[in-house]
């Protein structure tokens, strides 16, 4: 048993390494995502003109950031299964276990999303001003958001990549699934923005962790069935 787990761990590490190397070689994809984030933030800045913050524009600031992050993550993660060509998939099919693949993809996407979310937040705060009072808590909600988005979207992109018009399907399938998570995140980050007592966001934090746990276990159990086809 321990031996199998060790093999799984090795597979995961190997696959993450492979994804990182691939990303490093094709830097245009990552640069494209960076530019996507940057231009979206700038468009938001221009169209809202929110440079000066009054007290009541906090919710808009917060919701806008999460919407940008949502679209960024859908775009970034959608390609995680579609970019793989057929030959490479067949090769993986013969050498590694499906659990290894899904876990590796989840970890890799989480890393990618963490980086993107952090850059997005810094740039957004720089351009649109930063009303956040409790920054560590806000960063924690960003962290949870990145993990949550990447776990559920990885599975959805695996499902969507099997279908014909996968990019539309990706949006249709993912938005309803992500909404509960998004609502929790917006509430939690709003609490952090207003500098409320940290105990106030404990409910949201636990619920988010629970949702993440559910999503990861469900994708772990279900992915082998998807992989076979």
């Amino acid at each position, binding site marked *: *048993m321990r031996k*199998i*787990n060790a093999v799984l761990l090795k597979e995961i590490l190997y696959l993450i390494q492979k994804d990182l190397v691939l990303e490093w070689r094709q830097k245009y994809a990552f640069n494209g995502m960076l530019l996507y984030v940057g231009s979206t933030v700038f468009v938001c800045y221009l169209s809202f003109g929110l440079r000066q913050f009054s007290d009541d524009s906090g919710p808009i600031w917060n919701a806008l950031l999460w919407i940008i992050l949502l679209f960024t993550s859908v775009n970034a993660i959608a390609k995680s299964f579609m970019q793989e060509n057929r030959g490479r998939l067949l090769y993986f099919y013969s050498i590694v276990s499906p659990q290894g693949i899904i876990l590796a993809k989840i970890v890799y996407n989480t890393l990618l999303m963490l980086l993107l979310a952090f850059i997005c937040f810094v740039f957004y705060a720089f351009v649109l001003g930063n009303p956040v009072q409790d920054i560590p808590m806000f960063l924690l909600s960003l962290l949870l958001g990145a993990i949550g988005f990447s776990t559920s979207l990885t599975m959805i992109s695996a499902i969507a990549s099997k279908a014909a018009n996968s990019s539309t399907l990706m949006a249709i399938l993912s938005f309803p699934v992500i909404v509960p998570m998004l609502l929790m995140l917006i509430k939690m980050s709003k609490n952090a923005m207003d500098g409320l007592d940290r105990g106030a966001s*404990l*409910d949201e934090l*636990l*619920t988010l*962790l*629970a*949702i*993440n*746990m*559910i999503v*990861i*276990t*469900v994708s*772990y*159990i279900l992915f082998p069935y998807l992989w076979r086809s």
Partner: protein
Amino acid sequence: MKLFRILAICCFIVGALAGLTQVQAQPEQAQVEYSSAPAESDIEMADTLRQDGKIWVVVVVLLTVMTGLIIYLITLDRKVGKLEKQFKE
């Protein structure tokens, strides 16, 4: 591998429980006041649906359910009819 799966299921249950218990842990924080409606009951609206203790709302709801089910039945009926036609050919 089996152990791993069991572990995963345990994780799932623990996660779900954590979500539930912390929800139940917080007491009925917001007892929403139902009776706190503005005292505008004297204002009679020219609205048949509000008369007779609003019983007509119940009638509308029942009618909606009925129409929904009947429309569904009709589509099923049509499908069966189509199949019968194909069967004859």
